[in-house]
């Protein structure tokens, strides 16, 4: 009796395990769908809804739906009119005049005026705000000086409301990418009266006043944010009545809720990579290239990577086609720093896989067959994808150059600290675009950029990037960037671009008009829910 009961229990366990393995795919029922409500996963608590102090994509995913700046992105990453219905570019690209639409309203019914922008931009630059993204406006006259405390008077900063509907911005020098910055959350307008009234508490749902397609109605910290349609939105209220944003940190859990129709959308961050094969063929699956590149960087001040032949040899010894197979998210092998979607991308700049030539270069540099090569450390952060990448690089360098690399893992902040203070010979890093322009990629490796951990300093490259950002002719500008990219990837090789990331998502069939864009920005002003049959 007791024996058979035990056997039964064992059988149940085995059966369950078998089912666990064999059950695949997603349920096709529509139970659980909620009319006019879009349920998504935010993954984590947004650190701040103050769009001037927040710096992370979680916060921006909320703010993008609450606020509209002077311009707004469409899904092709072009700037459409936002609060400004038109603008003029004067003085050879140094002076922008924005003309605001008169029907843009805050959620409390007041009109959005140029004064709201002037106040907001000056607050962003005010040292007391301590905004991380203040540097976005450093191209404006006296902006850097004011933010760094060199001048105290905010009136000297080159932004001014000429009247209620005209906003003038004067730059130090022309900046071809400047318009993109006006679509970014950090540069959205702010209401002085609200901030003066509520102080630090102005972002709480009962206090906050916004001007975008949705307004915030509930914020249960660490759990859920609810947005509802803003009836005052200048394009007319959006068709969605409600957006529920849950904060589910674990991807597998979010996906379970999606399978049970309790979430309508799995965005790139919530996408369970480990399981990708199970639903690559699903009709709900979408995939789109992102403007984000992973690379291996060298500290060019440390031996033996002060010799550019060694760096070139390493770049040629790595077969980029392996990474998509290993990481399985549809990554694209990167042979250049500028991604194909942006101006300045050129086949000419490519660094090709050629182990034979790599060995030759290494021998010329004094390490034939890898003999006598100094101990080399590769720094990487504790992330599954980073680990797989460096493991593969280690194996390939050993196989193709007979050089042994030592991998060194670190906790995220310790890793960043080491990069900031004393980068080791090699490290794995990524860079995501701040705006859809080659400038955001190229600027990283200029001498003055704080994100240039390679310590590589090349005046030709710096000049090219400076000149290109002021160049008004798109063709000439693209050619300059292509030249810079070749310098970076073929000639000097302070970095080895590895792969461009891809955005993987799953969307329920009843969600319509959801758009995807190369910067993984989430805005839902056009989305609506169609009743499933």
């Amino acid at each position, binding site marked *: 009796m007791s024996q058979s009961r035990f056997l039964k229990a064992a059988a149940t366990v085995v059966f369950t395990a078998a089912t666990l393995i064999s059950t695949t795919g997603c349920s096709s029922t529509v139970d659980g769908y909620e009319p006019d409500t879009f349920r998504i996963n935010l993954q984590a608590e947004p650190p701040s809804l103050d769009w001037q102090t927040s710096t992370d994509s979680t916060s921006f995913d909320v703010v993008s739906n609450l606020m509209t700046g002077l311009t707004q992105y469409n899904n092709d990453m072009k700037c459409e009119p936002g609060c400004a219905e038109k603008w003029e570019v004067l003085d050879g690209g140094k002076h922008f005049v924005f003309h605001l639409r008169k029907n843009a309203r805050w959620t409390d019914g007041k009109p959005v005026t140029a004064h709201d922008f002037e106040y907001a931009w000056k607050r962003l630059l005010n040292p007391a705000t301590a905004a991380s993204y203040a540097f976005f406006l450093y191209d404006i006259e006296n902006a850097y000086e004011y933010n760094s405390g060199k001048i105290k008077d905010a009136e000297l900063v080159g932004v001014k409301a000429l009247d209620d509907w005209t906003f003038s911005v004067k730059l130090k020098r022309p900046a071809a990418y400047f318009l993109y910055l006006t679509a970014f959350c950090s540069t959205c307008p702010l209401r002085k009266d609200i901030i003066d009234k509520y102080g630090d508490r102005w972002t709480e749902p009962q206090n906050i006043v916004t001007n975008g397609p949705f307004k915030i109605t509930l914020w249960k910290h660490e759990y859920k944010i609810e947005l509802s349609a803003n009836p005052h939105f200048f394009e007319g209220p959006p068709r969605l009545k409600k957006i529920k944003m849950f904060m589910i940190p674990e991807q597998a859990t979010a996906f*379970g809720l999606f399978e049970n129709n309790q979430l309508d959308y799995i965005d790139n961050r919530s996408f369970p990579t480990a399981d990708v094969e199970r639903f690559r063929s699903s009709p709900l699956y979408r995939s789109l290239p992102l403007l984000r590149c992973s690379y291996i960087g060298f500290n060019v001040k440390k031996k033996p990577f002060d010799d550019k032949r060694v760096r070139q040899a390493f770049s040629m010894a790595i077969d980029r086609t392996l990474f998509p197979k290993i990481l399985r998210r549809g990554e694209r092998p990167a042979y250049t720093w500028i991604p194909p979607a942006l101006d300045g991308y050129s086949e000419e700049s490519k660094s090709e896989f050629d182990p034979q030539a790599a060995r030759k270069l290494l021998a010329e540099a004094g390490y034939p067959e890898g003999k006598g090569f100094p101990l080399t450390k590769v720094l990487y952060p504790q992330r599954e994808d980073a680990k797989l990448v460096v493991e593969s690089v280690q194996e390939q360098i050993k196989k193709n150059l007979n050089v042994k690399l030592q991998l060194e893992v670190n906790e995220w*902040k310790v890793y960043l600290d080491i990069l900031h203070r004393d980068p080791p010979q090699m490290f794995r890093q990524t860079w995501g675009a701040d705006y859809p322009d080659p400038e955001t990629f190229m600027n990283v490796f200029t001498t003055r950029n704080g994100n240039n951990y390679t310590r590589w300093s090349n005046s030709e490259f710096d000049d090219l990037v400076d000149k290109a950002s002021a160049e008004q002719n798109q063709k000439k500008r693209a050619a300059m960037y292509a030249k810079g990219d070749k310098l970076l990837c073929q000639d000097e090789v302070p970095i080895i671009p590895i792969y461009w990331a891809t955005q993987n998502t799953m969307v329920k069939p009843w969600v319509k008009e959801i758009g995807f864009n190369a910067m993984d920005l989430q805005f839902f002003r056009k989305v609506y829910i169609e009743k499933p049959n």
Partner: protein
Amino acid sequence: MLALILKRLLTAVPVLLVVATLTFFLMRMVPGGPFDADKNLPPAIVANLNAKYQLDKPVAEQYVIYLTRLAKGDLGISYKYVNRTVLDILSEAMPVSLQLGSAALLLAVIIGVPLGTLAAVKRGTWLDVAAMFLSTAGISVPGFVTGAFLIFIFGIWLKILPVALWESPAHMILPALTLAFSPAAYLARLTRASVLEILEKDWVRTARSKGLSHWSTVMKHTLRNALVPVVTVLGPLTAILITGSFVVEYLYAIPGMGRFFVTAVTNRDYDLIMGTTLIFAALLIVTNAIVDVAYQILDPRMKVEG
């Protein structure tokens, strides 16, 4: 007994002070700061941030500032969650963890202790072996795996319990089970070992051989003694369970405070690290004081000083 509790409360102050001091300086010795981010900030902006949060002062001075504020009951602010105070954050998260933790604790005790007693009494039978298998699984399978299995079986496959989220009492079942599995296993093994010790005492054996009814009265008296190790582990266990579990909250998307023990450290959110640590320390002092009091109820011969 009352004297013991009062004395404990008095010693709590220096203990907490030592914990606060050690944590403060350990935390500042760890590399990386709250504003180190993927994208490196210009020095002018880092200077603005440090000035705003008084991180530009010498560490010793910051320590004094912190203690002065703490003495006034101010736990400080979060560097990560802008405009939220540590008190705000913890007072929202704590009730959730308290509920879930108490449920798990209750489950662990009502599963673990009877199972262990039964295994000891039925020693060597299939029940003892099954209990050992179960408790081995409980301790050697990590929480995230147990949780993933439970979610799949009950949430996705059978669809009888919620996959995740924190909405109704039904949402508490799977997380509480996940959280209780490993402590229940530990309590079961500990109870078994402890009851076996008692069962092997000669006078218990004699009583047992005289007949079952006689033996059951003996059991009633001896089981109390056997519970001393169980109660010992319940002290820290209670403090751990009611301050939340990172894994369970992470897996089931529960807005509890367990996550902050991990994220506050990984974010270098200094005041939040101090807040979570001090709350845990205070709870531990209380639960361990209760344990010491419980000893004297279980076995009045045991002497504990305050």
